[in-house]
């Protein structure tokens, strides 16, 4: 079997010095595939996503995170990014004073050798393609990173960055939340544009709706800090129709397990 995959092995993790959130997550996303991750509020999806990206506010207690067979646990967030990982944040932050264009130039150059910086023409061509793919106005790239952006614009910016940075693996944390159908299609098109044999993605969502446009190869369900069920794309439809209780019951989990710390 090929090593080209994103893999989570028995991951236990907590908020640094605090409560344990992940209690043994196992998950594999092979390169070339798109998997969906669903689950109730507070089940640990974003925590998992941020842990994969190396968020220092969480602590790994046990288990491993691997990119193409190599553990990335000891890598800093920037090293993981340069190893090919990309996280589209559920709540992207605002960074004043840096334009999207300048920021992406820095991000691209970080992936290249010193002295081999991306050329101006090449860079803008890339940026323009991405802006077009997202059906966006070009002036957006001169705006400061998320300053004054609407929720939907932030999500779109996360996908724009994905298209420019061309990661090997992407985690999209609710990139569809708060979008109307038109915007949703645009974002889905963006992700689909990135699809290919050398790209794998984990798409976190609450809504089957998105999965009509980004058809997943598999669906995983997370609850109380673990992946409790995996199945084909039809699983998402079941969840959409029936909710999570039947699946929780099947695994003997109470709903309170997810919502506790959330309340």
């Amino acid at each position: 079997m090929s090593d080209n995959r994103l893999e989570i092995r028995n991951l236990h993790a907590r908020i640094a010095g605090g409560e344990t959130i992940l209690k043994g997550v196992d998950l594999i996303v092979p390169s070339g595939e798109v998997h969906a991750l669903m689950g109730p509020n507070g089940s640990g999806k974003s925590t998992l996503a941020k842990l994969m990206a190396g968020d220092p506010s969480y602590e790994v207690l046990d288990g491993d995170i691997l990119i193409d067979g190599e553990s990335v646990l000891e890598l800093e967030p920037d090293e993981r990014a340069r190893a090919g990982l990309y996280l589209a944040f559920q709540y992207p932050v605002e960074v004043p004073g840096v334009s999207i264009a300048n920021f992406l130039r820095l991000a691209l150059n970080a992936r290249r050798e010193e002295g081999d910086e991306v050329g101006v023409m090449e860079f803008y061509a890339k940026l323009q393609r991405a802006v077009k793919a997202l059906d966006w106005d070009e002036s957006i790239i001169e705006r400061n990173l998320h300053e004054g952006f609407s929720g939907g614009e932030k999500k779109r910016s996360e996908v724009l960055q994905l298209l420019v940075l061309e990661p090997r693996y992407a985690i999209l944390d609710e990139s569809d939340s708060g979008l109307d159908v038109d915007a949703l299609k645009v974002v889905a098109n963006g992700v689909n544009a990135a699809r290919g044999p050398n790209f794998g993605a984990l798409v976190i969502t609450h809504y089957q709706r998105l999965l009509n446009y980004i058809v997943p190869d598999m669906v995983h369900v997370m609850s109380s800090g673990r992946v409790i069920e995996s199945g084909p794309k039809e699983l998402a439809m079941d969840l959409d129709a029936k909710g999570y209780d039947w699946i929780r019951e099947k695994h003997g989990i109470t709903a309170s397990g997810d919502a506790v710390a959330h309340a």
Partner: protein
Amino acid sequence: MATLTDGAVLTAEALEALIARLGEPDWLAAERRAAWRTYQATPFPTGRDERWRYTQLNRFAIDGLELVDAPRDTGVSDRIAMRITDSDAEGTLVLKGGELVREDRRLKQAGVIFTDLRTALRDHEDLVRKHLYSVVNAGDGLRKYAALNAALWTNGTFVYVPKDVEVELPLGAFHTADRGGLAGGRTLIVVERNAKVTYLDEFTCEPLGERLVNTGVTEIVLGDGAKLRYVSLQNWSRDVVQLNTIRAHLARDARLESLTVSLGGDAARAEVEVSLQGPGSESEMLGLYFADEGQHYNQYTVQHHASHHAHSDLLFKGALRDASSAVYSGVIVVDPGAQKTDAYQTNRNLLLDGESEAVSIPQLEIKANDVKCSHGSTTGPVPEDQRFYLMSRGLRPEVAEHVLVTGFLYEVMSRVTLPKVAQYVERVVQAKLGVPGVKEKL
């Protein structure tokens, strides 16, 4: 805390020798002697002095320093020469150790005077006499270092813009040095009714290998409806300690946009005091500093609303790292009768490590009842979520830090309306941050 002295190097004899050497008119000699008496009668500041609280006073010591009476040589460094070539200024002067060592002028408008103070005293004595010491003088509680400057300054610049004249491009002076000691420079800017000008004071030198304490005083007189953009850019080498006082009087409807930048030196104190004396006058006061490697920056500001319907808006922001420190202390004073005052004061500090410290002391003294005033300050570390976000895109930690510092200072930078100044400040900040390839271009 150590008590400060001047170590008996500065004496009445030294002052008399200076007066004799400069050969100035009697009225000026009398002013110098009066200032000298004030200097002697005024104790050095202590930590108990409200205006100097938390200041590392010993870093501003002057004891044992000889007066700088001339530069070692009159050459202009390549760096300054390049900055002049690169500037869009209509006039620049270079003052070094009290000597005027270079002047480039393309002044087109009649009546505009832009020259060094010694020349101005010769060619325009009446004008200088009318305004020199009119804003910072021995009579109104002249402070220790400002009194010292008033007695011992050797040269400086004089800018005079007659009424209704608008000078399009900036004027500026480079204040530089090639030796240690105690130096004093003075700037006098007079903008008459409805006239307009932009003027920059820039302080810079190559490493000296000995300690220089530079005192500077800038007096600004704005007539009715006059407009001035004033920039004070301190980028001395690390041998230098700067004590600078900038004080302005604004008449009716006058507007002052000031920017005070501290990037160089070992320690620097900037006092920026604006007196809004005419109704409808406006003062924007921006400040920017970035302290590293133990630098100590100290700023004291006054927004004095002496008249009604005046507006002042102050924003000082600074970043600190490597066991550096900064003190910001500022007061909004609203006189009785200064109704409809609109005054804001904000100081923000970004701490890049745990060893650096910033103290912020905003104050209000309001004696009128129909006013809008607000002040605020924040001091804190780099937001970790922002740092993580940037790094999650592949930015190395040091690059992420550059972005965060630039982003923090952006609130001030975006309000600087002089592109060349903004560009230069940005480059110096980047060089201090260690952004590759920037230092070479300075």
